[in-house]
C-alpha cells in the first residue's frame, strides 16, 4: 500500500457510535479464551473514561455459533436476540455494545431483516411474548466493543503510559490487524471503514503510535470459520487457512497481531504452536512466534496495566518479546501466580517455540 494512499474511499464508511450508556453483551467463548479482556473493557470504560456500562446476569448466548453451524433455526435465533433487547429495554438503555463479533454481525443481520420484513419483527415480538411475557424496543445504536474503544482511541492515547514504538530503535511497531469476518464483510456499512479497509483496529494502532502492515491475505479468515473447526474432520482446513495468513504476513516482519473477534486471537495464537510442532516452522525471526492481542489487551497495555492482570499469561505465544520491545514494566515471576499471589504450575509450553519444541520433538 502507498504510504499515503491517494484514495481513502473507505473513509466514506462511517457509523455512529454511541457516546455513553451502553448495555454490554458479553461473548460466550471470549470469557473462556481471554477472560480478562472483557473485564479490561469495563475497567477502561468505567474508570478511565467515566462511562456508564450496565450488564444483566440473565443475558445469554445469542446462538450465533449454533446459527452459523445450521443447528439453530433463524426464528429461534431472532427470538433469543429479541430477549437480549428486552433486557436492555428493561434497564432503560438504548445503546448496545457487544463483545463478540459474531453477535454483532448477527444482531446487525436481524435488525436488517426486520427493517426489510416488518412482518418478521411482528412475529418475533409475538413469539417472545408467548414464551416469556417480555417486550422490547429496538436499540438506537449497536456497536461492537472495538468500535467503542476506537471511538475513544485518542482519549486513551492521551492517558497512555506506553506508545507502540520500539524503545531501542524509536521506530513504530509493525502491527497486523485482523478483523473478524462478521464485523463488516456481511454489512460493510456497519463497520468503520467498510469491508475492504476497516479502520476500527488500524485507527487504534495508529493512535497508539504503531504502523499497520497491509499484507496480501489481510482479509482472509483466521481459520476458525466455525465448521472449519467445530467439525473435527475439517480441522486441517482450519489450520491451513491460518498457515496461509502467516506465510503471507511473514515477509513484512510484524511485531504483533491485534484482533477484534473471539475466535481469531484464539486460532492465530494456538495454531502457531501447532504449526511449530507439526512443521518446525515459526513466523518470526527469533522462533518465539508472533504475539496475538485482543484490542482490550492492547488498550490496557498502552495504559500501563499489569500484563498479567490483562490475562496475557493465557496466550500460547508469549508476549514478553513485545513487552520488552516497548519497555512495558512487568515481573516475569508473577506470570503464573493467582490473584492471591500463590504460585500456579508453570505450563510445559516454552517461551521459545523453536528453541524448545523443535529441540525436543524434532531432533
Amino acid at each position, binding site marked *: *500500500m*502507498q504510504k499515503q*494512499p*491517494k*484514495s481513502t*474511499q*473507505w473513509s466514506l464508511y462511517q457509523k455512529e457510535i454511541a457516546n455513553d450508556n451502553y448495555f454490554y453483551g458479553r461473548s460466550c467463548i471470549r470469557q473462556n479464551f481471554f477472560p480478562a479482556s472483557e473485564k479490561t473493557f469495563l475497567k477502561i470504560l468505567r474508570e478511565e473514561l467515566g462511562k456508564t456500562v450496565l450488564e444483566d446476569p440473565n443475558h445469554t448466548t445469542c446462538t450465533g455459533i449454533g446459527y452459523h453451524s445450521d443447528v439453530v433455526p433463524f426464528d429461534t435465533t431472532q427470538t433469543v436476540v429479541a430477549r437480549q433487547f428486552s433486557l436492555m429495554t428493561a434497564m432503560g438503555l438504548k445503546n448496545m455494545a457487544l463483545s463478540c463479533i459474531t453477535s454483532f454481525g448477527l444482531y446487525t443481520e436481524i435488525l436488517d431483516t426486520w427493517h426489510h420484513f416488518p412482518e418478521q419483527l411482528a412475529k418475533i415480538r409475538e413469539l417472545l411474548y408467548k414464551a416469556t411475557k417480555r417486550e422490547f424496543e429496538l436499540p438506537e445504536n449497536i456497536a461492537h466493543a472495538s468500535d467503542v474503544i476506537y471511538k475513544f482511541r485518542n482519549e486513551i492515547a492521551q492517558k497512555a503510559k506506553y506508545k507502540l514504538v520500539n524503545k531501542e530503535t524509536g521506530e513504530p511497531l509493525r502491527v497486523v490487524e485482523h478483523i473478524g469476518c462478521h464485523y463488516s464483510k456481511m454489512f460493510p456499512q456497519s463497520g468503520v471503514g*467498510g*469491508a*475492504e*479497509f476497516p479502520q476500527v483496529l488500524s485507527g487504534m494502532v495508529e493512535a497508539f503510535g504503531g504502523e499497520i502492515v*497491509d*499484507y*496480501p*491475505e*489481510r*482479509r482472509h479468515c483466521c481459520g476458525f470459520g466455525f465448521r472449519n473447526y467445530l467439525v473435527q474432520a475439517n480441522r486441517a482446513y482450519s489450520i491451513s487457512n491460518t498457515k496461509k495468513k502467516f506465510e503471507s504476513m511473514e*515477509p*513484512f516482519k510484524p511485531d504483533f497481531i491485534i484482533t477484534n473477534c473471539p475466535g481469531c486471537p484464539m486460532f492465530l495464537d494456538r495454531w502457531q504452536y501447532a504449526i511449530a510442532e507439526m512443521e518446525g516452522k515459526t513466523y518470526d525471526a527469533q522462533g518465539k512466534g508472533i504475539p496475538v492481542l485482543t484490542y482490550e489487551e492492547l488498550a490496557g497495555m498502552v495504559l500501563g496495566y499489569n500484563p498479567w492482570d490483562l490475562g496475557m499469561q493465557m496466550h500460547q505465544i508469549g508476549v514478553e518479546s513485545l513487552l520488552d520491545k516497548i519497555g512495558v514494566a512487568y515481573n516475569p515471576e508473577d506470570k503464573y501466580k493467582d490473584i492471591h499471589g500463590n504460585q500456579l504450575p508453570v505450563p510445559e509450553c516454552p517461551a521459545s517455540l523453536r528453541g524448545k519444541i523443535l529441540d525436543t520433538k524434532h531432533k
Partner: protein
Amino acid sequence: MIDVLIIGGGIAGMEAACTLHDLGFETLILEKEKQLGGHLRNWDTLFPTKRKASEVLEHYVKEIQQRGITVYLNTDVTSVKKQEDGTFELNTGREVQFKTKTVLMTTGYALFNAERKEEYGYKIYDNVITSADLEKILQTAKGELRSPSGNSIQSVAFVHCVGSRDEKSGNHYCSNVCCVTGVKQAIKMRQLLPEAQVFNFYMDLRMYGSGFEEMYREAQEQWHVQFIRGRLSEVAETIDKRLQLKAEDTLSARPLRMHVDLLVLLVGMESNKAAADFAQSCNLACAPSRFVQPKDFHIESNKTNVEGLFTAGTAIAPLSVFDTVNHAKAAALSVSEYLKKNN
C-alpha cells in the same frame, strides 16, 4: 441569433457541427476544456482497426477549422433556459450570454471513478491502473514498458465491467465498449511484451460490433490471451509490489489466486455531471441510468423532452466512436428538420 449552439466539442459535437454547417446553418461550439476532442484526446488507438485515435481527432479538428466554425474553449455552460418564443438562453462562466434557436447537447460521458471499487486497490496500490490510464501510457510509451512501480512486467490482468453492470456502484447498465477495449489492450500488451502472460477476467464478452468478434478470436489464437470467466473478489499487494488477485473461475468452478505485475481496470462510462446540471436548469428528462432520456429511443433518439433541445452521442448512453459519429450525423438532420419547420 445563432441557429444551433452545440455544447461539447468531442467527436459528436464536431461531426454534428460540420454537417449542420454544410446544411447552411450558423453553428457555434462551446467546449469546457482548453482543446477540442473530449476523451478521444487521451486515447491511443481505436478498435477494431487499431488505428491511432489522433488520426480521427485531427480529421475533425481540421474539418472544423476549414469551415471556420466558431468555437469557444474553456467555456462551461451553467444553465440553459428556454424562452417563451421557443429560443434558448445559455449562461456560462463568460460575461457574454448566448442566444440560440436550438441547442445540441453533446456533453459526452464521465469515466467511472475506479476508486469507488476499493477492493481493486486503485490509487491504493501503485500497479493498479485503469484502461484510460493505459491508453495515456501507450500514447507516449517508448522502450520497454514497465509497471508504475518500475518493475518489469511478466504478467498483466484486465478486469472487465469495473463500474458497469454493478450493483455496488449503482450502474446496472453495460458500458458497451469495455469488452472490446479489453481485447484490444490485451493484444497490445502481448505485442509490446511478448514474454508476458495476459489474462482477462470477464462476466460475458459482448462482441456486438463489426470486427469485434474477429479481434476476440485473434486475441486467443494469435496472441494467446487467456480469458477467465469470473470477477475478482479482491486485490492485495505483496512486499515486492506485485499484486495478488483472488477470483473464481466460474467455468471450471474453482477459486483461483494468482500474482500479476500490472492490473488494468476496464472502467465504464457514467453520465456526465453536465446532464444533471441541464436537467435542473431546463427540466430535461434523464433515464434511471442518469444518462439523458431520448424522446423516443427508436424513432427520435436525438430529441429530448424539451422541444428544440437535441442530443447526440454518449450523452444518452455508452456508445462506441462508430455509433457516436452516426448518432451525431443523425442529430444534425433532426436539428435541420426542426429549424426548417420553425423558421
